[in-house]
């Protein structure tokens, strides 16, 4: 069983026999089947990130097409039919196929490293989720490629997306995409919540947990509560479309506003489960570059929790122009204003940290500073759109387009670039170019402002959203032209990023284990991390384990099997070691199950029969997946100590 004739135990030292045994245990075999079977959270997380970035690129091209259509009045580059598909695909792709998966992918990659464990809790489920996500995204784009792109907006309001007005199969593609992406989101969220609550390194009590992990935890729970409503809603629309039910048909007692409630009850928290992980990036990056612990750590944790809760009480502010009761609207105004307070707490704590620190002004911190500027604009215009009377004027105009892009670019894209520059050395073992990074930052910062700031004014001048063109006498031409110019600058900045990654991911300057001098555990291992993450699971005694001097106590866990995928389950609050846990080993079934689910959902786009009989392949795949395996059971029993 081992080189020394006894069971190998893990222990410190990256060159030790234990490390070599761990390498053998955790490494994926070469070959395509092994590639499809991997359950390594780092490979899975990276797949999410890379796939999501490809969708980001695609959605960005679609956004660019819109800007080129609108750059002058009466432009005929895109017709109304194609334009409607383009803006629907842009929004749908950005929200469902980029923003949520990229944040979840980063969490899948980083959380186990940050909390000191060897894998996520349910990596097979996350592997399956990845393939479901990929198949769903390809399905949506396959529809778009054959002129069946969703065209009722990313919000897919009925009756426009219903059976009577949403003709053809376009809305069906959208509804089924929701099933794909929400299934993915829920599966990953359950995995992340579990690994955070139950598999933290001994000693990492909740109060010592890194802020990014807190952000991931809050996000995971928000996803679990928010996503089912949109899945329900999309399937009710599908029932109306495919079976002739009348959930949303006012002529038969249905109500079209029901959809808006179901959609925005998910849709508003969705903004926050893009934004909250980004807050986590900021909270991870600032202490490293200010060379001090985060000021107000506890206040930030409470703010994240408050944001998570409050975000479920805002959804009606997307519906102020409907005839929901006036008193109810005032409540949602109050809630919309209230959610600004936890954001303010965090911003002030970050500034306090910078104020009292010693700054290392590198590219990640530059993007964080850009985040402050852009997000502040978006947050403050958020107060404007949260107020009922002001929203009645700016709702569904370019003012909102400006607002939401400031929020999402400031609140998610700037932090994402900060995160890419920050963690790229850990993920690839190479540094990104600082020079290209600075150029990219400035072009992006300037381009975003030129592109989106004029839209505020356009909205106030009466330019509605989602129009494919406009007449010259409206006077909207010049500002649209400026905006399109800004988009060209943003394009250039994105090209620089691609160039930076392309030049450096193989041949860049080699990264040390901890190139930024950061405090958290993901920097305690070589870059890129070995498949088993830690040669010995760490024992944590403070919030900044890599900054605090060793105490007299234990520094690592020892005694876990190195020739089996063994880990530790700890208690929820204090992370006291509880039981040993056997991590799942790689398997092809998650991939097969995802194919089966994809087959089922894709069939259901075209036929009611498909929705029914299509369930058979997933059923077979899941039975195969969960069928007990003798070899695994024997291995687990061998490690078990009977009392």
């Amino acid at each position: 069983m081992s080189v020394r004739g006894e069971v190998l135990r893990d222990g410190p030292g990256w060159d030790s026999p234990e490390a070599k045994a761990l390498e053998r245990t955790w490494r994926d075999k070469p070959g395509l089947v092994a590639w499809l079977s991997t359950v390594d959270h780092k490979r899975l997380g990276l797949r999410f990130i890379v796939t999501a970035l490809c969708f980001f690129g695609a959605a960005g091209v679609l956004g660019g097409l819109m800007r080129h259509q609108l750059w002058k009045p009466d432009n005929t580059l895109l017709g109304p039919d194609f334009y409607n598909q383009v803006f629907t695909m842009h929004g749908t792709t950005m929200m469902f196929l980029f923003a949520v998966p990229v944040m979840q992918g980063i969490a899948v990659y980083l959380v186990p490293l940050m909390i000191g464990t060897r894998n996520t809790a349910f990596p097979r489920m996350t592997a399956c989720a990845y393939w479901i996500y990929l198949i769903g995204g390809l399905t949506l784009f396959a529809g778009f490629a054959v002129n069946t792109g969703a065209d009722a907006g990313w919000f897919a309001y009925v009756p426009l997306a219903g059976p009577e007005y949403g003709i053809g199969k376009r809305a069906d593609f959208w509804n089924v995409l929701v099933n794909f992406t929400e299934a993915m989101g829920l599966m990953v969220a359950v995995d992340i919540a579990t690994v955070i609550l139950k598999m933290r390194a001994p000693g990492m009590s909740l109060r010592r947990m890194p802020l990014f992990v807190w952000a991931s935890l809050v996000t995971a729970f928000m996803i679990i509560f928010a996503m089912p409503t949109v899945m329900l809603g999309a399937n009710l629309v599908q029932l109306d479309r495919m079976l002739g039910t009348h959930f949303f048909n006012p002529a038969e007692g249905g109500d079209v506003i029901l959809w808006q409630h179901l959609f925005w009850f998910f849709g508003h928290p969705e903004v926050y489960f893009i934004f909250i992980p980004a807050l986590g990036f900021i909270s991870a990056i600032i202490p490293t570059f200010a060379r001090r612990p985060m000021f107000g750590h506890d206040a930030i944790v409470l703010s994240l929790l408050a944001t998570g809760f409050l975000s479920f009480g805002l959804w009606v502010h997307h519906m102020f122009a409907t005839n929901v009761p006036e008193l109810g609207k005032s409540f949602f105004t109050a809630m919309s204003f209230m959610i600004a307070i936890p954001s303010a707490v965090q911003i002030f704590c970050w500034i306090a940290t910078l104020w009292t620190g010693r700054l290392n002004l590198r590219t990640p911190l530059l993007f964080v500073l850009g985040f402050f500027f852009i997000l502040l604009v978006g947050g403050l215009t958020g107060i404007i759109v949260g107020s009922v009377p002001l929203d009645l004027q700016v709702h569904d105009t370019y003012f909102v387009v400006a607002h939401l892009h400031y929020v999402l670019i400031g609140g998610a894209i700037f932090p994402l670039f900060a995160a890419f520059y920050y963690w790229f050395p850990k993920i690839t073992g190479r540094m990104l170019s600082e020079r290209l990074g600075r150029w990219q930052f400035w072009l992006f910062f300037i381009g975003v402002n030129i592109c989106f700031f004029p839209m505020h004014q356009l909205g106030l001048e009466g330019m509605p959203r989602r129009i494919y063109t406009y007449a010259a006498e409206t006077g909207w031409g010049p500002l649209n032209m400026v905006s399109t110019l800004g988009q060209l600058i943003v394009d250039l900045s994105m090209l620089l990023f691609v160039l930076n990654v392309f030049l450096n991911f193989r041949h860049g300057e080699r990264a040390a284990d901890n190139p930024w001098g950061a405090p958290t555990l993901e920097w305690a291992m070589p870059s890129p991390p070995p498949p088993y993450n830690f040669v010995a699971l760490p024992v944590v005694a403070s919030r900044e384990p890599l900054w605090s001097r060793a105490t007299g106590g234990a520094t690592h866990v020892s005694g876990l099997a190195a020739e089996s995928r063994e880990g530790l389950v700890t208690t929820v609050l204090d992370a006291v070691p509880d039981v040993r846990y056997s991590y799942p080993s790689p398997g092809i079934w998650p991939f097969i199950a995802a194919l089966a689910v994809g087959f089922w959902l894709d069939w259901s786009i075209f036929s009611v029969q498909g929705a029914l009989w299509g369930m058979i392949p997933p059923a077979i795949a899941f039975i195969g997946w969960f069928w007990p395996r003798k070899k695994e059971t024997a291995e687990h029993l061998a490690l078990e100590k009977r009392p």
Partner: protein
Amino acid sequence: MSAAHRAWLAAVSIAPIGAIASPAHDALRAAGPQAAHIADLWWLTLGVCAFVFVAVLAALAWALWRTPRSDAGTPADAAPAPAAEKRIGRRVTVAVTISSVLLIGLLIASVMTDRALAHLSLDDALHVQVTAHQWWWTVTYDDRQPERIFTTANELYVPVGRPVLVTLHSDDVIHSFWVPSLHGKKDLIPGRVATIQFRADQPGEYLGECAEFCGLQHAFMAFDVVALAPAQFEAWADAHRKPAAEPEDAAARRGRDLFLSGSCMLCHAIQGTSANAHKAPDLTHFASRARIGAGRLPNTPANLAAWIADPQKIKPGVNMPAHLIPGDDLGALVAYLGTLR
């Protein structure tokens, strides 16, 4: 960047020429009390937000300017001095308190504005029913005497200084009724009835638009709001209550016969003739309208002829089909429609 440079030059050179007169459509140039309340709230909110923006960025800039620099090798300050932490903590508390107080102030201002909007006096209000269709508007002026009720399309004439209560319906999908110069928007939702009230205090022309995405031609679903002095408004309304006049010249009469014998009357109505369908805009006083196709084109004979011949070319997806009409018949139709003043 030479393409962008050219685009910029083009923008600069086009800008002054592009300013042809169009109906007013600026949320901040209020022409009535509702939009004025909202504009007041706008300036207050903008002022507070601008103050917060400048203050926060100033704090950030100060932090950047005064703090010493470091690099990745600088030992981290793992346990900052408690006294300094306390001092900065007080500042954070003060900043959060100020933010909360400002937010509460804005909330009160928002709710007060909401009340003011709801309290517009509706004494002697003009009652109008508006029904939205993909992609045009029916406008019906209510009256206690049924014979005084009349219908028009894609235009809303209102008397200056008199409140207007608009009841909103939708015939198909969700639309939104928006006249930026007069008030915020209100959705027209199938299966639900909503109302919106406003008053125009200055005579003029205001652009009305559909603000909720409603399909292919959401971009061209406008209506013209014309605020007239009360006497002028009454004269306009009286004129619109009358059926269409009998055409005088031969070409127009031939046009009328073509209209009534062809497919036009299957969808359109002209009061005073046998055309009485309501699938498309009422054309009784069509020639008095400024624009055709719900704001798509100025109402000129040439545009009208092009529109009748092939509306799909001008407004793709519109529910009016193309018509293969010989040139002189088309001329007669245009001549007839031109008499419907």
